[in-house]
C-alpha cells in the first residue's frame, strides 16, 4: 500500500534546516540578552570623535 505523502518524514536536508534555524534563532536570542545586560559597560574607542 502506498504511503500517504502527508505522513512522510521531512527529508534530511529540511530537518537540518529546521535544526539550523532553531539553533541560529536561539543563538541570536542569547546574544541579544547578553547585549542588553552588557550595554552599559561603557563607551568604545569609536567614540573618540573620528
Amino acid at each position: 500500500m502506498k504511503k500517504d505523502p502527508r505522513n512522510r518524514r521531512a527529508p534530511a536536508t529540511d530537518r537540518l534546516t529546521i535544526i539550523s534555524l532553531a539553533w541560529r534563532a536561539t543563538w541570536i536570542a542569547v546574544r541579544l540578552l547578553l547585549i542588553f545586560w552588557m550595554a552599559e559597560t561603557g563607551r568604545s574607542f569609536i567614540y573618540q570623535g573620528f
Partner: protein
Amino acid sequence: MIETAALLDLADLPFWYLVSLAVAILLPLQHAGARRLTLAVFYLVSIAVLLGFRTAIVAAALAGFTFITSRAIAHPRTQSIAGARTTLLASAMIVALILFTTHKLPSPATSLHWFSASLAAIGFSYIFLRMIDLLRVVADGRAPAPGLVDTIGYLLPLHMLAAGPIESFSAYAQRPAVPPRPSSAQWLNAIERIVGGLFKSYVLAGGLRTTLLTDFAADGLYLLLEIHLFYLWVYLDFSAYSDIAVGLGRFLGAEAPENFDRPLTARNLTIFWERWHISLSQFIRRNVFIPTQLTLGRRFSRHPLWVTSIAFFVAFTLCGLWHALEPAFLIWGVYHGLGLVACNLYRYALKRRLGRPGMERYLANRVIRWLATAVTFEFVAFSLAFALSPAFAARLFGALQ
C-alpha cells in the same frame, strides 16, 4: 579629541526605532526615485532627531555644497574652459580641507563651537573622504554629477556615519536603482550580522575592556600582554561597527562594503592593509597612492622601486594625519608607511634572490608563515597601542628618557 554632547550611539533605542520605521517604509517601495528620496529624508531626519537640528543643518549644507560643486565641475561650460574644471576641483578640495582641519583641531571656545561639535557628531572625517571621492569621480568623468537626493544618500548614510565603511562613489553610482528583495535566508543573515556586531562590541569588546584592560597601568609581563589585548579590543570594537553597518545596509537596501577580513592573521603589512579597514585602504589607494605613483612614475620611470616607496610613505603619512592631527598619529602613519616600504623592498629582494620557484617554496613554508604572521601582529599591536592610548605613549616616552 573634540568633546561633543551628542554622538551617534547604537545603545540609543531611538536609533533602532528610526531604522525600523525606515525599513518598514522602504520594504514595499519599488519606485527608484521614491526609495532614494525616502533614504535621504531618513538620513537627515535621523541626524536631526539623534544628533540635533543644528547638526542636521550642517550635514545638509555639506551635501548642498558638494552637490553644487559637482554640478559646476560637470557642467559643459566648465568643460569648455581650459583649466576651469581643475580650478573648481582644487577650490572645493581646499574648502573641504579647511572644514576637515576645523574638525580635527581642538574646538574653539567661541560662538563657533557648535559648528565643530556638529562636524564631530556626524563623523566628518568619513564625510570628508566621501566628498573627495565624489568630486574626483565626477571631475574625471567616471560618473555623472549626482542630484541633491543622491548626494545626501552618498555622503550621509546613517548606518555608515559613526565608523564607516567608506563606499566609493563609483560603487554607489552603480548600485541597482531598486535592490532585489532579500530572501528569508538573506534577512536572517542580515539580522545575524547586526546581532553579531552588537555582541562583538558590547559583550566581547566591552567585556574585554572592563575585565582585562588597565589603560596600560600594569607593569611587567602584563604590560606586554595588554598591548596584544588592546589590539584585539580595537579589532573587535571596530569590526563590530562595520558588521552592524553591513547588516543595516542590507535591510535598508543601501549596502555597505565589507571592511575587515581576518586582519589579525595577515602574514605581512601589505596583506594587513588589504584586510583591515579595507574601505579606507582602498580610498587611499585610489586617491593618494596611485595618483602619487603615476605622477612620480612619469618623471622617474627608471626608478620604480623608489617611486612605489615614496608613494607608500606619502599615502600612509596622510593616512595617519587623517586619523588625528596629532604627533602620535603622524608617527603612526610614518611607521606604517616605512613598514610598507620595508615590506615592498623585502619582497623585491626575495624575488630577485630566490626566483619564482624559490619564492613559491618560501611562501608555502609553514614556519616562515607563522613567523611572518607573528611579526606583523606585533608590529600592528604596538602601533595601535602607541597611537590610540596616550597612557601607553607616555609610558613609552618615560621609559626611553
